[in-house]
């Protein structure tokens, strides 16, 4: 990648086993509950994965390749808008590292090789904190957050 890149590192401690956390990322029916999207793949190195909106339209929002997988410790995927999938320059990289920490799992999500100032960099820096806190809530209390919530759109208006 020629242009300047940025890196984001997100950490959350989740009271769950590494297996549960890994499953929550890679199993579509679980991700749908707290992420509103499913990560669909056969999870083999070199395979494609797709980030699919968990609704009737099943829109593919993002796509990438499985770079490295070592359940339940590590998952590395490339990450691009679905429309940019064929352009390797547009792929950023997401690494999930899971480390047991006392009775919790320390989950580190590193999103790097992102084009500085791009819409993707801006989008993910809003998205990851929301998704990770929702994941933590879901695994610890069985109550996911509304990841589509927007402070301006009142729920009562619906």
């Amino acid at each position, binding site marked *: 990648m020629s242009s300047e890149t940025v890196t984001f590192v997100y*950490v*959350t401690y989740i009271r769950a086993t590494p297996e549960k956390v890994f499953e929550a990322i890679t199993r579509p029916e679980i991700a749908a509950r707290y992420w509103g999207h499913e990560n669909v793949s056969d999870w083999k190195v070199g395979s494609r994965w797709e980030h699919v909106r968990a609704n009737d339209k099943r829109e593919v929002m993002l796509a990438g390749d499985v770079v490295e997988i070592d359940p339940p410790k590590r998952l590395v995927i490339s990450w691009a808008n679905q429309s940019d999938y064929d352009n390797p320059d547009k792929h950023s990289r997401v690494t999930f590292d899971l480390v047991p920490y006392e009775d919790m799992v320390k989950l580190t999500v590193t999103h790097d090789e992102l084009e500085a100032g791009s819409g993707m960099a801006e989008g993910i820096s809003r998205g990851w*904190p929301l998704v990770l*806190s929702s994941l*933590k*809530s879901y695994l610890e209390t069985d109550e996911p957050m509304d990841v589509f919530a927007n*402070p301006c759109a*009142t729920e*009562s208006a619906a």
Partner: protein
Amino acid sequence: MDDDKTFKALGDPTRRKLLDLLCEKNGQTLGQLCEHLDMKRQSVTQHIGLLEEANLVSTVKRGREKLHFLNPVPLQMVYERWIRKFEQQRLALLHDLKTELEGENDEQ
């Protein structure tokens, strides 16, 4: 509780400034952060320590350097627990008011 650590970490102007600095430019070294703060390196280290303990800052070793990254996940948790709940009440009130006023308009 985790929230206690978050609020304690936020309850200091230097630590809030450190978060602002990382928000502006993520992944800085201690030296880079010190450039913007008028205090001893050792004090900055202590403040960063508290931010790390509260999980508001995470660090990554890259070669000899240690880079600091803003980790807003605990802030998101605080937002969900302590802000959004109250915001929704306020928004619901505004919505009721709007409905009421618009209802009156319809009758005119």
